[in-house]
């Protein structure tokens, strides 16, 4: 529908009037009309509500409205938010035409408040951002410091471990010597002293005391060494066939004198009497038993220590119960920490025995449990996998894997070579022998082998040189080094050995076969 003139007239007369009324009423629109000599011609009644009290027709507008001072009435202008005498913020539009200027004022309070709120929110936001940035910077600094401290701690830990290992090693060597010589002298003295009367047997007794003290010192030192190995994950568990009855008998004989000295009883109970052959690391088992039973005896001044052992369904369970001092509940977890010792007990030691024992038991697939009542005593329990050896013997040939390998053994020591050759051959391995590195390199060039076992210290050409030569032509054949020393003890630079595995003598044929199965594809 097109808008005709009649419709425009209706809009103009009716609708606009209503719009005008709405705007005036709702938005407090006020106006002053002035001629081009700035005299007021007309104004709205509500102009007075904005504080312009002296507005009247004929008055010079610059006398009553201060923002009109200097204004050109022939040019339209829009002013930003202005404050009126009543304190109200208004927007001002000055509309000029040929005849007059109309000054429109519209209440902008709400708009002003909104802008203030926006501004405040923006300010607060900026403040928050600033605070956040400061916190982030502090966090970065703290994180850097923490990282530094962590590195320092790691270094301190490494130095401590290295120091302990180094010192312990130095102690162990002469101690071993002392023990060995006192053993020898004791043996010789015992034979000759047996003929004399008891009052002259003090030499043997003194020697026994020196020997016991040395062995005790050695066990402390070896605990320190083991602690270092714990930290570098070097403790290895090597299961082998052992007789449980013999192990427990040996431990009992070792601990009994300590109990006799203290005047406490030592009881051993087990559900196995005749030899029981199981697959377990006997030296580690002994170490755990000696540490735990030794601890029980140490902390028991009266009463008894009872050791109970049970072997069923390939599991060895051991319980050690004492009638000693007991452990405070809050200390039950702390005693497992290295070097921690309860205060006021007056008991000697390094505080490492339990830490090491627990770790060894974990490595052997078990778990250590400790329960205690202060003043009544403590019980320590653990269980370990101890498969029966007869069944394991058969299963081992299956678990070793393949043995149909063709191996080259480079070893200059005839005794070792003969033994390894024979042991491997008995397991179905085809073995060739080279008695020095030069021969080994030549044999590698002329033949195909699945694996090379290489000794390092050989005449003519040593193992390092031989491996280097082999690797110039063959990077595929696995090379396993066998040496009498651990890598870190070698006197020659070893950083560049391109070997696939390193075995320290004495080496089990099972170790060789396991590595062969792992390396030979």
């Amino acid at each position: 529908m097109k808008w005709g003139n009649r419709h425009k007239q209706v809009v103009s007369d009716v609708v606009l009037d209503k719009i005008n009324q709405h705007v005036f009423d709702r938005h407090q629109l006020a106006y002053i009309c002035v001629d081009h000599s700035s005299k007021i011609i007309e104004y709205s009644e509500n102009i007075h509500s904005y504080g312009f009290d002296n507005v009247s027709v004929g008055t010079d507008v610059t006398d009553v409205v201060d923002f009109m001072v200097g204004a050109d009435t022939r040019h339209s202008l829009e002013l930003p938010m202005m404050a009126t005498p009543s304190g109200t913020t208004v927007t001002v539009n000055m509309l000029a035409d040929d005849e007059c200027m109309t000054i429109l004022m519209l209440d902008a309070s709400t708009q002003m408040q909104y802008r203030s709120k926006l501004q405040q929110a923006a300010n607060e936001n900026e403040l928050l951002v600033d605070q956040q940035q400061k916190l982030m910077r502090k966090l970065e600094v703290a994180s850097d410091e923490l990282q530094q401290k962590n590195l320092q701690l790691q270094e301190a830990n490494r130095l401590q471990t290295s120091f302990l290992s180094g010192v312990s090693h130095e102690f162990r060597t002469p101690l071993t010597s002392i023990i060995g010589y006192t053993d020898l002298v004791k043996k010789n003295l015992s034979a000759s002293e047996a003929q004399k009367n008891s009052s002259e047997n003090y030499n043997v007794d003194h020697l026994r005391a020196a020997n016991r003290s040395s062995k005790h010192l050695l066990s402390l030192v070896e605990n320190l060494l083991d602690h270092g190995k714990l930290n570098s994950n070097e403790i290895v568990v090597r299961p082998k066939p052992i007789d449980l009855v013999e192990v427990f008998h040996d431990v009992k004989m070792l601990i009994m004198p300590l109990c006799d000295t203290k005047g406490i009883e030592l009881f051993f109970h087990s559900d196995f009497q005749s030899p029981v052959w199981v697959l377990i690391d006997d030296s580690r088992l002994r170490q755990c038993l000696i540490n735990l039973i030794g601890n029980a005896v140490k902390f028991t001044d009266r009463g008894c220590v009872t050791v109970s052992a049970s072997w069923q369904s390939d599991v060895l369970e051991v319980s050690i119960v004492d009638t000693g001092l007991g452990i405070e509940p809050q200390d039950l977890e702390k005693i497992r920490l290295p070097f921690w010792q309860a205060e006021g007990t007056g008991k000697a030691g390094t505080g490492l025995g339990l830490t090491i024992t627990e770790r060894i038991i974990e490595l052997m697939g078990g778990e250590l449990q400790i329960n205690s009542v202060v003043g009544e005593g403590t019980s320590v329990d653990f269980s370990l996998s101890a498969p029966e050896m007869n069944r394991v013997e058969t299963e081992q040939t299956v678990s070793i894997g393949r043995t149909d390998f063709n191996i080259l053994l480079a070893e200059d020591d005839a005794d070792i070579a003969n033994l390894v050759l024979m042991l491997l051959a008995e397991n179905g391995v085809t073995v060739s022998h080279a008695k020095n590195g030069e021969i080994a390199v030549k044999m590698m060039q002329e033949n195909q082998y699945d694996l090379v076992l290489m000794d390092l210290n050989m005449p003519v050409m040593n193992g390092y040189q031989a491996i280097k030569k082999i690797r110039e032509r063959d990077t595929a054949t696995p090379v396993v080094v066998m040496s009498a020393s651990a890598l870190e003890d070698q006197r020659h630079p070893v950083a560049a050995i391109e070997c696939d595995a390193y075995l320290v003598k004495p080496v089990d044929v099972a170790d060789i076969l396991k590595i062969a199965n792992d390396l030979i594809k």
Partner: protein
Amino acid sequence: MSNDSPQIQALRARYRESFPEKMAVIDGCLENLKCLFHEGDDQAIKQEFDVIHAELHKFAGSFGMYNYQDIATVCRDAMTSISSRDTQLVLDLLTKLSAMIASHNVNEES
């Protein structure tokens, strides 16, 4: 209890028969080192250490392989002493080593 085959047992027996020879090597090293120690010739001692270290390294390997762990351990301890240049301790350990081999030799013969 031995699970060794007769051939391995024979090897072990032959190894035991070599003990006097090994003792002779150790005693020889001991005497040489004692002389050099008294003379105070550091350079010569260093060279002798190299020789002894090589022998001990072989012994540590073979004694260990043939289940004489106690002797192998003393060999390693002596090697460590050589690394730390403690001549007196090396002498003590070589003496001990000789005694241990002799002791095993006597025990196993009887």
